[in-house]
């Protein structure tokens, strides 16, 4: 089992609904976020292209955050989801430094926090909150090992890219282009 997410940049409007839904679903404190929107513009007026990307933890196969965690708080759960056990975290910040995607933040309660792919929902067969809320239906989630999962079907017929492939982390966030 390998959980992954695909984001359709042809449909994302960068509204940030995924960010608010994550905030209310996971009680992310104000001023912090587990997911965010990147807007990238290319070209000069009027020959332009624009891409919105809803970004979060890439739940990398080869995850530097897990490797560098001195207490084992950062670990891999079922389906490759990368998690932080809050009570084991000493807040040293090594994982924050090691993440090429800047996906982690220091929670005011003193531990490091980040996207969990809403594992509490996924365990019940539901989608992460960001996927279920997205008004443009541009997020796809599921098990890559299942050829009929939403994410497998989305990746099958489309071109895609991952972010910072050169980091060698084997990220599991795919951007449909």
């Amino acid at each position: 089992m390998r959980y992954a997410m695909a984001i359709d940049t042809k449909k994302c409007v960068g509204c940030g609904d995924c960010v608010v839904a994550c905030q209310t679903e996971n009680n992310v404190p104000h001023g912090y976020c587990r997911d965010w929107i990147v807007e990238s513009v290319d070209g000069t007026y009027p020959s332009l292209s624009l891409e919105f990307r809803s970004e979060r933890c890439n739940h990398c196969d080869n995850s530097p955050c897990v490797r560098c965690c001195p207490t084992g708080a950062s670990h891999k759960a079922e389906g490759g989801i990368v998690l932080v056990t809050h009570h084991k975290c000493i807040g040293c910040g090594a994982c924050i430094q090691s993440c090429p995607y800047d996906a982690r933040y220091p929670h005011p309660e003193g531990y490091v926090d980040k996207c969990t792919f809403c594992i509490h929902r996924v365990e019940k067969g539901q989608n992460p909150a960001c996927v279920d809320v997205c008004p443009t239906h541009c997020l796809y989630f599921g098990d890559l090992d299942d050829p009929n999962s939403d994410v497998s079907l989305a990746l099958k017929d489309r071109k895609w890219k991952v972010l910072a492939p050169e980091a060698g982390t084997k990220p599991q966030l795919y951007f449909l282009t």
Partner: protein
Amino acid sequence: MKTRRDFIKISAVGTGATVLGLSAFGAKKFKWFEPKIEGPVSDEDLTPYATYCEVCFWKCGAWAYVDKQGRIRKIVGNQNDPHCNGRLCPRGTGGVGMYYDEDRLKTPLIREKKADGSQEFREASWEEALDLVASKMKEVKEKYGPEAFGLFNHGNPGGHLEHLMRAYGSESNAEPAFANCRGPRSSAYFATFGAYIGSPECTDIRDTGCLVLIGSHLGENMHNSQVQEMSQAIDNGATIITVDPRFSTAAAHSTHWLPIKPATDIALLMAWIHVLIYENLYNKAFVDQYTFGLDHLKEHVKNMTPEWAYGITDIKPDVIRKTARAMAGAAPAVVIHPGRHVVWYGDDTQRERAMAILTALLGAWGKRGGLYIPEGVSVPKYPQPHYPEPEWTWKDINEGKYPLATMGITTELLKASVPRLNYKHQVKAWFVGGTNLPLAMPDKKLFKEAAEAVEFIAVMDTMPMEITGYADVILPEATYLERYDFIRSSPNRVPNIAVHVPAAEPKYDSKPGWWIAKQIGERLGLHDYFNYDDFSEVVDWQLKQLGTSLEEMKKIGVKEYPRKSGPLYLGDGEEFKFNTSTGKVELYSVDFADEGFEAMPVYKAHPEPPQNFYRLIYGRAPMHTFSRTSNNPNLWDLMSENAVWVNPKVADLWALKKDQEVWLKNQDGAVTSFPVKVRVTERIRWDSVYMVHGFGHSDKKLSRAYGRGASDEELITNIAVDPIMGGTGMRGNFITFLKDNPATEVKEDKA
């Protein structure tokens, strides 16, 4: 005697939120504190309460999830609601912030004049505040007649006040949603098709082959179901044509982006019409059967060629031809989106007419993938006496101007409040509900003069805002999550209704709008119009007439009804009489001609920015609505301020850097109260700047939003009024940059 009423800040009340200055890891030091980790709660442990979102006007059906401690944890869309299909937009998801905002209005407040002449608000009991409003309403009625009590309203809260005012005898009401927003399209589409576009608009984007957006930035204006349908259209491979001087989100997702020169849209539309007619691409069957005036139109657009339009619009003739052919190729499955905030240059009804005519030529009215035929549920009126007949209404305030206005015009209501302007019918007092006028109205001077001139202002709202600063009495309203309210019934593909059920008790000492209106009504002896103890009785009675009940609706939230008016689309060749004077779709508008207006749209040149000035274009961001959400903690997190978009060429010329703070000054010398950050981006033309509307709040009680970003409204002093329906065109303003604080400059001048 004139009562001087100026903007005052709500400062005398409340202690404000305590800000803990613990740094992210600082908290770690206090080991004796048990961390209060409160993770996600599974949906099964939460209780859902039926509601519909009131953060914006789309009113999506939703569920408010409440935990065992009675706290509202999250809000999610109702799967059965066609406004949202189970998915809210960021504002809807962030609706919890509206409830939790600690800056909310907490108690009634009354303006008090002190011995030294200064004014402040003091806390008051509900009894005292309501008595005061009722006594003023009695006083106005005796002195001037009830008609002199004007109402500025919007949304549900405004609806309760409208009921109160009509029972009292006044129909002097107006809402910015008409003359400051979508009025031109109402008048234009009614003149053409004898039907209104409605809200949500009856655009069949879901099944369209070609979506044409003219300055309509879907995705940034987060009109939920339409954004969802645009996404479906992208999946379906529909052609999307976006006309916008700015590279909007919709433009980025389009097949064709036409970066038009601002203020020239009518020329492009007429050239498209020219191509359709002279290349014989129009829908002959539809036009022959249903329309009136093709010959007039043909003659009218004879010289309006793509080559003619190129010189005006900057859009190349081949692009105009190619896009017109793309529309014709997809016809009748073409949506020419009528837009929403369409008051731009004062000839907006004519621009909307051109869009309606284009729709007709493509045969896209009443067709799959074009404009569908909407149907709503008629909610029976709760038994009450007839409203008294006022001696004059908002129509009379216009004094014969704007004959095709279908609702009150906010600017006219303001003007009627200024004695100097000698309106025949004078407005002497205001009730304001659900609209933040100082940031909604152009021409701040006029607003201030009117606000100072009237004898009394009562404001009902949930948050302190610019408008509350002008009030004599402030009535804190409960949010939509804390009250019963009107049944939502808006036309859609399938008729449907939705209800509000309170998910929590009103916070602080706030009260539902219906309760406030009833309490005032009772004091005025209008009990028969408020013959209920709780608004849930009204809702339940109405639901029972509709074959359901509050009990059932609490479980389902949204209910659909079968259509009665016939199918969603017009059958091929089906006979149909349009509700116009000719009974046909009017390519040539008989009504317009009768009223002395042009029967067919004509392009007229509009002023261009003088040297060193740039056209001010404003718009929306998906996470905010109007100026009413800027302080919402969840939405503030997403976007805390606006920026002024500046093309890199312009930035170079002015040596402006990214994030540099500037003040903006317009052609009439108006300057923003607060600085705004520069955003250097290719997404805007070099003759224009862009900013998101709704920022630059001046009330310090908005602890997050105060002074963040700048208000575009302060820069809109030149208004092009639409002679047909009174729309206030606001895109004719030009700005320049001030790199130093203008307040400092003034001081230096004096020294």
